[in-house]
């Protein structure tokens, strides 16, 4: 939404004439797309458009899935930039699986009082895939809320980067911001870099962040094995368990099934 940015190629206006229950698919892979959700309207959208801009007007609600199956040979760079008006709500999911490098730039401006965002990422990386997730949540207005949960499963020589920045402006009192990045490394060569960053200029706020990097636990694997379940199946079930709480943040059952089906 910065001035001087070029005009999006395609604009999607979501108003009350759309049925709230149906999933809207926006699949233009290249170029820029703009989604504008009109006041008070709720929508569920799946979009793998590379450069996506979202405007949520007052009281608008959006559940957005960004699925990226990285089976092409080219590296991919995508972005999502969001502008939220008063009392709007966004729940977004970035789900990537694959073996080529990937960069996702997400920025959310909580411009209106009471705006809320839940930003979630699931990455399943294999081969020598590098995945960069950069998030910026800008709390501009008071009583805004952000909640981020990013999880990576790192296989082979995969490398996951997470850089999450939370900015709380002077006017944004009573901000509530939470960020968590968890990583599960399944191979000796897998790598993870995680970097939280908080910049807080208001004095009455709640902000917290956390990061964790782990491997499959020997005692857990042994427990599975004593029940007749081999190490490979045990690892599959533990990975499924690791990503489960992210999937459970998706309210729409069809959307959840689509995201879960990718992994």
């Amino acid at each position, binding site marked *: 939404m910065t001035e001087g940015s070029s005009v999006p190629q395609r604009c999607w206006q979501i108003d009350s004439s759309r049925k709230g229950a149906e999933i809207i698919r926006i699949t233009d892979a290249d170029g820029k797309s703009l989604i504008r959700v009109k006041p008070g309207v709720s929508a569920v959208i799946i979009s793998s458009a590379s450069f996506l801009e979202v405007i949520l007007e007052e009281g608008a609600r959006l559940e957005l899935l960004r699925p990226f199956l990285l089976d092409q040979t080219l590296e991919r760079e995508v972005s999502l930039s969001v502008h939220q008006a008063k009392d709007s709500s966004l729940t977004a999911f970035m789900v990537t699986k694959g073996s080529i490098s990937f960069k996702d730039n997400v920025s959310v401006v909580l411009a209106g009082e009471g705006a809320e965002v839940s930003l979630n990422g699931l990455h399943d990386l294999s081969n020598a895939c590098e995945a960069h997730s950069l998030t910026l949540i800008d709390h501009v207005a008071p009583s805004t809320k952000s909640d981020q949960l990013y999880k990576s499963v790192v296989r082979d020589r995969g490398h996951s980067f997470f850089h999450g920045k939370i900015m709380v402006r002077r006017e944004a009192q009573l901000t509530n911001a939470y960020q968590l990045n968890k990583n599960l490394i399944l191979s000796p060569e897998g790598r993870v870099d995680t970097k939280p960053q908080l910049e807080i200029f208001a004095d009455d706020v709640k902000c917290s962040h956390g990061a964790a990097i782990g491997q499959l636990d*020997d*005692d*857990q694997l*042994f*427990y*599975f*094995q*004593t*029940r*007749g*379940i*081999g*190490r490979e*199946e045990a690892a599959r*079930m*533990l990975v*499924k*368990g*690791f*990503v*489960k*709480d992210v999937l459970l943040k998706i309210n729409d059952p069809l959307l959840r099934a689509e995201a879960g089906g990718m992994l």
Partner: protein
Amino acid sequence: MLNIKDLYASVEGNQILKGLNLSVKAGQVHAIMGPNGSGKSTLSKVITGHPQYVADSGLVDFEINGQMVNILGMEPDQRAREGIFLAFQYPVELPGVPTSEFLRASYNSVCRHHGLEQMDPIDFDGFIREKMKVLEMDDKYIDRAVNVDFSGGEKKRNEILQMAVLNPRLAVLDETDSGLDVDSMKIVAHGVNLLRSKRNAMIVITHYQRLLNYIKPDIVHVLYQGRIIKTGGPELALKVEDQGYDWLIKS
């Protein structure tokens, strides 16, 4: 069914078992008692194949298809599929893995190994609820992640539930009574007793005689410094309860 010969075993370079001999026949319940650090838990881990517990020498022979086979080279999951079960002293939590899915995966992998029919989720749900009733477990545990937010007592019941699902030929119960109040212990013991039969055997490892009032052993062993120093009938457990281990250690 199980024949352990002159077993020496170590964990992290410390030798814990030092020449242990034990022979268990089908239909028997053996109790193993002993002071802290005598090697009780190590024995359970070596029988079931925990990778950190290394057998330095000796044999652990287990009857598979009518033959006695040294199982020390087998993976823990292979041993489990052949009918060896461990009820853990400290059951492990598996976040995000639903109890029902875990139990079904376990049951089906054993069935697959023996060429038996596997169960679909609906049939398995009925099967598991029956077993839970016996252990007076609340249905809500079916959907919860394995052992996550279970009380100490519920974790122990869950171990016996898994034992009931797999119906193992040899069950090793490692301090199943620890952390259980008397009422829970009675329920758990009842669940265990229902699984006793002529075809299977149990090794009950315990600190206290208390549990043996409810799970009556045929043979009682006292383990001390990595060896069995005394074997007797149920009266041995009562004597230990009464007099402690000192009289055994000094003699």
